[in-house]
């Protein structure tokens, strides 16, 4: 490991030198080239494993617009006051310095599948032998009438972590006594199935301390949601009378918002709200659409190696892909990335390709020391990534078990972020 890392320094220096040369990068050598778009749980992990395991045999470029990445997982815990915003922020310095990855802070804006190049907003064109897209999510235009991206300052989605999360928390803290926080929950499928409900728990935890007569209103187009029994049990126990959820039977799917007037209209009935968290329907990050590999809102992939069903030289990881049974989560993206990296390395260098295997576990925090989890294992079939086995926390678990589950989630956070960023 250490020796490998030292060996990378030379590669990194060569990468930097190429950067200062005009336009087409990386053409000077014969190494296979992988370009990874998106530096989250899928992309950062894939880039790191490709660089680490190929011992410098593969030239890896990671394109990620932000210099400082905030994880969506644990961002709800920031809202609840359990984490600082800094503690969920990560930079790409180690991926560049220790793994020799060419980290380019830029937006990928085009993919030429015939020429096998990616173009960026900064004006670069990067050739690839394999392209890995892990762009996360974007929102479906017009999904919530009255809301568009220009209203995200009035009604934040906070579903890409960072400034949006800080804004939402500030708006909740500024609510008048006894005011109302509303959430417009998204339809399936969406990033982090328990996420909206963990968020409600964390908002309730915050309000219970600073504004205990405040109300939480959820408009939800879904009949059921992830860990529902666990969340509802927890809400009754910790936040009795504070949370009201309007499901589809009562018009929860028929919602309109007015960001100027700060109103939410559910099935024709208007409510004035003081903070409003609109989480619209989602689709694959835009570059997947630009690359022409989406079908509907997502990019269909083969289960064995996460390769696009429309282009064998492109792989799609995480939230953006349609793969089968795995939930759209950071853990899933991280799991898929390692299978993909193994397959891509095998294709480019002839290394052994081991059979795909996938897993996911999602922890959620309901209140102080009240953690729950759900998890499953998956396998690759011809048709899709298929569930093998799974578990979910039980209702009525002891306080000790719940506290241990929360402690475990903290350990997992350190583990997965080390696995992503080195």
């Amino acid at each position, binding site marked *: *490991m*250490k020796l490998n890392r030292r060996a990378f320094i030379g590669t990194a220096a060569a990468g930097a030198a190429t950067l200062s040369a005009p336009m087409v990068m990386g053409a000077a050598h014969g190494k296979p080239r992988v370009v990874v778009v998106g530096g989250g749980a899928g992309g950062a992990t894939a880039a790191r*494993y490709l660089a680490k395991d190929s011992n410098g045999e593969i030239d890896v470029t990671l394109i990620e617009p932000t210099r400082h990445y905030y994880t969506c997982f644990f961002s709800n815990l920031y809202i609840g006051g359990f984490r*600082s915003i*800094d*503690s969920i922020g*990560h930079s790409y310095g180690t991926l560049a310095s220790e793994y020799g990855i060419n980290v380019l802070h830029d937006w990928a804006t085009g993919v030429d599948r015939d020429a096998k190049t990616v173009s960026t907003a900064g004006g670069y064109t990067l050739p690839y032998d394999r392209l890995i897209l892990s762009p996360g999510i974007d929102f479906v235009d017009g999904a919530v009438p009255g809301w568009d991206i220009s209203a995200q300052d009035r009604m934040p989605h906070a579903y890409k972590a960072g400034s949006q999360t800080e804004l939402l928390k500030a708006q909740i803290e500024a609510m008048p006594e006894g005011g109302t926080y509303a959430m417009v929950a998204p339809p399936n499928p969406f990033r982090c199935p328990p996420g909206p409900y963990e968020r409600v728990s964390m908002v309730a935890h915050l309000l219970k301390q600073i504004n205990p007569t405040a109300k939480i209103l959820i408009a939800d187009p879904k009949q059921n949601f992830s860990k529902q029994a666990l969340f509802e049990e927890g809400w009754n126990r910790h936040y009795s009378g504070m949370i009201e959820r309007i499901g589809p039977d009562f018009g929860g799917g028929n919602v309109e918002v007015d960001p100027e007037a700060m109103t939410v209209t559910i099935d024709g009935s208007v409510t004035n709200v003081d903070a409003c968290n609109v989480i619209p329907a989602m689709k694959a990050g835009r570059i997947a659409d630009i690359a022409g590999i989406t079908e509907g809102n997502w990019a269909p992939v083969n289960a064995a190696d996460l390769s696009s069903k429309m282009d064998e030289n492109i792989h799609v990881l995480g939230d953006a892909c349609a793969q089968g049974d795995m939930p759209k989560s950071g*853990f899933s993206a*991280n*799991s898929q990335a*390692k299978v993909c990296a*193994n397959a891509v390395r095998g294709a480019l260098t002839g290394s*052994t390709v*081991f059979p795909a*295997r996938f*897993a996911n*576990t999602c922890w959620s925090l309901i209140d102080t020391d009240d953690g729950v*989890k759900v*998890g*499953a*294992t998956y396998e690759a079939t011809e048709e899709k990534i298929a569930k*093998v*086995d*799974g*578990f979910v*926390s039980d209702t009525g678990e002891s306080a000790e078990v719940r506290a241990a589950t929360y*402690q*475990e*989630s*903290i*350990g*997992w*956070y*350190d*583990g*997965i*972020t*080390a*696995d992503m960023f080195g």
Partner: protein
Amino acid sequence: MVRRALFPAILIAGLGGPVAAQVGGDPERGEVLFRSDCASCHQVGQGARNRVGPHLNGIFDRQAGQIEDFRYSEDMMLRANAGLKWDFESLDRYIENPRVFVSRTRMNYAGMESAEDRSDLLAYLRLFSADPANIPEAAPTAAAVDHEVAPEILAIVGDPAYGEYLSTECTSCHQESGAANGIPSITNWPADVFVTAMHAYKEGVREHNVMEMMASRLSNEEIAALAAYFENIE
């Protein structure tokens, strides 16, 4: 990142006000505590060997990080190179909260809160330190075995290259560096301990919903491969 996450732990420890253990505890009670809290990883007594943790014979007045053939964490070696010596006071502080004393130690132990317990435990360990000749004739404390694995399973020689690939499923939670905070370290365990633990989960003898699920679909060869990889990971 990891360092920041540790701040709350330090604060909590500070707020409680450290209570040092007193010399002169009850070694018999200490033995009971050793068996329940320590013996799954450490041996002490005649013939004690390194297991998941180093053997503890002669630990009093020994420089830290000195047992041959044991791979310590980087942080433990930093402390050792800075001159850490194990004596009553330093052992007391380490056992009270290992990760506060040595921040990324591989020791998977949350800490022994009670000063009286620590006093008793150290009184017991002290019995094996005065002088090698004084070590009682008793057999070494065996690892606390909650599961017996068939010898033919333990004899399987794992393929570390396959183990490295399989390990990527572990490193979504368990850190490759051996650092541990809420999820145990699994690096540099003796292969037989690793295999025994995984089979205990696979057969549901040891309970943990994630680990039972992960272990249940690993074959005997795959468990051996993981054990071979993690045993020698650097």
